[in-house]
């Protein structure tokens, strides 16, 4: 690995994308993700790339569609209200099976909401988001280093599966500075894209479309997509466990919330309470199998989110009634404190919930 540098999460994300071979960025300003397009506008021309500030998130996401059709490694970033505007294009991109990377630096909602960090786009991100039967692959990094690692891998995953990948970050991870290391030498994967529309010189012409008027064929397409997602659930799920071996209560949290939860687990352990942390890193596919396995030995679960309860639905599905699943959430840009989460752990242990 290279030398350690101190970087903001959003800037690290942008640099990681460039290191991964991304040379095209189309975006639109929105807080709290502006460091990403600003960094890209400066850095991409230095490496022979192209930055375009689009007229809207609708246009930006369709430029992504076009650049992906042309076979490029391409990305955009936005924040919640802007991501909502991109859902149309993301549905088309997933339908046409094109690779791209989208970063959502989540802020509180609904509507215009606020600009403080939140995790209230979990369901939109993991369940499809736009119309039709599709999924993005979604990762929720928990540190600036993990933002770098996941962003670089996201382009490989997108190319390998021909599927959009979303990085679900938030204003805390995006704005905070942490030391990060980039690999000294990184060769972006060179997965052939014979399907790309680059001009049909020397080959039969290519057509990229998500339109299929024959219901028999459209059903076959949906079945093929479902098989792709099933394969991904076997290959892409990842999570981290902390002190779960003997835990009476396991906190389930991702991203920023997992950092708070980890401190709360430490505090609980100091107080003699057997707490642990299960941190999903892939949010779609969700690490359901690992969570179900953990349910055979953990006493109870406590899901903590910066929302009124979204990921908790996946936790309950994974645990499948074998153990109680409790929930604690803050919303609107409020961040749960260590003290609050510790208090909730104690309540679960003492049977006060």
């Amino acid at each position, binding site marked *: 690995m290279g030398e350690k540098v101190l970087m903001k999460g959003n800037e690290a994300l942008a640099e990681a994308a460039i290191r991964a071979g991304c040379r095209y960025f189309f975006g639109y300003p929105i807080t709290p993700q502006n460091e990403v397009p600003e960094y890209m506008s400066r850095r991409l021309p230095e490496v022979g790339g*192209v930055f375009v500030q689009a007229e809207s998130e*609708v*246009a930006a996401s369709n430029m992504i569609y*076009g650049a992906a059709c042309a*076979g490029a490694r391409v990305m955009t970033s936005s924040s919640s209200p802007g991501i909502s505007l991109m859902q149309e294009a993301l549905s088309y991109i997933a339908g046409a099976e094109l690779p791209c990377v989208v970063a959502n630096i989540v802020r509180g909602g609904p509507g215009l909401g606020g600009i403080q960090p939140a995790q209230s786009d979990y369901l939109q991100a993991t369940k499809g988001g736009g119309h039709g039967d599709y999924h993005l692959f979604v990762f929720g990094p928990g540190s600036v280093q993990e933002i770098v690692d996941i962003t670089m891998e996201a382009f490989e995953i997108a190319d390998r599966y021909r599927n959009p990948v979303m990085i679900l970050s938030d204003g805390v991870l995006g704005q905070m500075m942490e030391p990060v290391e980039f690999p000294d030498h990184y060769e972006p994967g060179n997965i052939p894209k014979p399907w790309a*529309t680059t001009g049909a010189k020397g080959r039969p012409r*290519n*057509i990229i*479309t998500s339109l299929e008027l024959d219901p028999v064929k459209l059903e076959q397409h949906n079945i093929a997509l479902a098989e792709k997602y099933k394969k991904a659930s076997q290959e892409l799920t990842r999570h981290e466990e902390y002190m779960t071996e003997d835990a009476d209560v396991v906190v389930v949290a991702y991203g920023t919330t997992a950092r708070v939860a980890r401190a709360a687990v430490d505090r609980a352990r100091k107080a003699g309470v057997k707490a642990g942390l299960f941190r999903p890193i892939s949010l779609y596919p969700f690490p359901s199998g690992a969570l179900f396995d953990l349910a055979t030995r953990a006493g109870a679960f406590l899901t903590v989110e910066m929302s009124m309860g979204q990921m908790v639905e996946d936790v309950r599905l994974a645990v499948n009634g074998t153990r109680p699943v409790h929930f604690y959430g803050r919303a609107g840009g409020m961040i749960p404190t260590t003290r609050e989460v510790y208090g909730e752990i104690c309540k679960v242990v003492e049977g006060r919930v």
Partner: protein
Amino acid sequence: MRKVFGRPNALTSAPTHYCPGCTHGIIHRVVAEVIDELGVLDRTIGIAPVGCAVLAYDYFNCDMIEASHGRAPAVATGVKRVLPDRVVFTYQGDGDLASIGMGEIVHAAARGENITVIFVNNTVYGMTGGQMAPTTVPGQRTTTSQSGRDISTAGYPIKVCELLATLGGAAYIARVSTTSPANVARAKRAVKKAFQTQLAGDGFAMVEFLSSCPTTWGMTPREALKWIDEHLEPYFPLGEFVSRGRAS
């Protein structure tokens, strides 16, 4: 025997789904002949719209992309920025380009995006059954303006060429029709200029076709062409609005 007339290489042999008398067929052929004559078929990427020409990817014999409604200029921007040495064109109707996609077309033109846009204006939403479009002329009857477009409630039709001509990035803007052999010949010259503008790297080029929809207009094909000349052309005058590229 000498072959004196044939299908352009830039068109496939697929029978089109267009209604009898619709001018999409002529416009497809004009575009295809120009692509053939410029010898760029194997480095051309076309973007199909949502609307009557949604299946244009079955007819143009080059790499094709199907865009969502109105977004073809954004998709074309993505392709062209990645592949600046390829020829990229969009083919869009008036609902697609002048209503839902107004933002995308205006900003593609403003950026001087080096693409060619074929804009087919038949003043109705043909595919969905003939509803009022942003280019429906005052008094024109459609399924959502059944007593004729009332400008006091439905406002005025949008003159896209005139609008885009105000933008610095627009290098070639022309409006044509296909109501006579002479008009078809003029249309082809305009389309050729629009592609040459792109090949010269001069910026945004668009050709608007006044087109007929006999089916939803409730006319015979011949009546529909006459109606273009008598009712559309006075509102949407033909001609070149911008021609400032090196190709001109």
